[in-house]
């Protein structure tokens, strides 16, 4: 059985982790965590790490022992410099808490690139984990912000992602809030849906990696996929209807509607892994093999895993990319936001200086 560690950093990471824990409790309702055990598809250990205690308190389905508060008042206020310092000061606490969970075959770090705690902890944590757990690939699930969230968040996202890639984790899987906003009208239900979707896809992947499969793909294949291209990728998903063929289900998982990050897989894909689950009657292996051979011509190496499970076929695609034009756009917006923020700061400072200059050679008269 695979030993997997899932770390949720910062508010966003905590909430996706909470959604994973909720899924693992099944349909037991709000009190399930008090009387049932989590049913993860593998040996999964989870820890929610945050500097803001209120965010940790807000988690519903994460057990108290799986919440780690890194003491620093009430969060780092989206300031990555403070976040990095706080991580340095509390590194031992964090690493010893992880160490208590044993050894791991695979580590997921879920974080927002835009916030304070998560975005500053993630790159440093990758460095520490790589030193301690040398054989476990580390995959970062990184959530990009809404573009209108403000210049600080955009700036954080730009620098966090760069720091993260510099640390060379096994791979970075992107989730784009801006792209997924289409899911729901209001912001709260959009967040809830994004968190649940991301959590379900991760659990789908974990279950497949830990199962005996009809057509086998494993952790080694996942590493190879994540090594492809520039090490950045995303996930797609498709659930087939009753009458659709397995081919349309496979191709459906590459469609923009199922992706977590906007990209053209056929143009930009480097390597891919497809995991297909469904009833045996839907699994035409010849058609699956043929479809994947066709895809390999366009996308590059495609690994396949087939799992016999009740229900209609569901396909998870996970791929790395050769280029990420959407990320270039994000960096252009972030750079513009940083420049205009600096101009505003300079202007305000010169205004304040000129206001103070009125009393420069004066003394108080009483």
């Amino acid at each position: 059985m695979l030993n997997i560690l899932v770390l949720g950093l910062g508010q966003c990471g905590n909430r996706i982790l909470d959604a994973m824990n909720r899924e693992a409790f099944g349909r037991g309702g709000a009190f399930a965590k008090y009387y049932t055990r989590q049913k993860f598809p593998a040996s999964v250990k989870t820890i929610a790490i945050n500097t803001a205690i209120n965010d940790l308190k807000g988690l519903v389905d994460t057990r108290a022992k799986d919440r780690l508060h890194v003491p620093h008042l009430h969060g780092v206020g989206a300031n990555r410099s403070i976040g990095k310092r706080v991580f340095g000061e509390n590194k031992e606490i964090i690493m010893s808490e992880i160490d208590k969970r044993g050894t791991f075959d695979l580590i997921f770090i879920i974080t927002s690139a835009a916030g304070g705690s998560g975005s500053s902890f993630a790159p440093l944590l990758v460095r520490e984990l790589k030193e301690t757990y040398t054989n476990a690939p580390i995959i970062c699930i990184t959530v990009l912000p809404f573009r209108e969230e403000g210049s600080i968040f955009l700036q954080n996202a730009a620098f966090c992602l760069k720091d993260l890639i510099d640390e060379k984790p096994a791979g970075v899987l992107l989730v784009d809030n801006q792209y997924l906003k289409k899911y729901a009208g209001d912001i709260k239900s959009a967040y809830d849906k994004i968190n649940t979707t991301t959590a379900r896809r991760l659990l789908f992947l974990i279950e497949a990696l830990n199962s005996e499969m009809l057509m086998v793909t494993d952790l080694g294949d996942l590493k190879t996929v994540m090594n492809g291209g520039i090490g950045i990728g995303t996930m797609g998903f498709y659930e087939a209807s009753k009458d659709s063929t397995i081919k349309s289900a496979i191709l459906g998982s590459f469609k923009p509607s199922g992706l977590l990050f906007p990209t053209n897989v056929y143009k930009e894909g480097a390597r891919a892994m497809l995991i297909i689950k469904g009833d045996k009657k839907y699994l035409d292996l010849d058609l699956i093999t043929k479809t994947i051979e066709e895809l390999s011509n366009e996308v590059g190496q495609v690994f396949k895993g087939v799992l016999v499970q009740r229900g209609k076929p569901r396909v998870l695609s996970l791929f790395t990319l050769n280029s990420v034009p959407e990320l270039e756009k994000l960096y252009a917006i972030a750079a513009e936001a940083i420049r205009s923020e600096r101009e505003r700061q300079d202007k305000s400072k010169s205004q304040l200086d000129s206001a103070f200059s009125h009393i420069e050679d004066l003394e108080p008269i009483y």
Partner: protein
Amino acid sequence: MIIRQYEDRPSTESVTYTLSKMGFKVFRIEDGHDLYYSNDARMYTENDIRVHAKKKFFDKMVIELNNEMRLIFVHGDETEAKAFLDNLART
């Protein structure tokens, strides 16, 4: 049953490993004694190795290797037999 011809002879270990990855447990390995009639050679040849495996009570698979003709015989559910050959090719 599915019959395929192979280039490189699969080892018993790789057959066992592939079966275990698919959730099958090997419970008997024996020297083969099934005869296979070859149209090319116009003769019967004896299969060399026979591997018996099962997953659930009724879910069984038997793999036979015929080294002389470079053939692999997979007895069992057709979907699983195809999947086995695909998985074996990757090991």
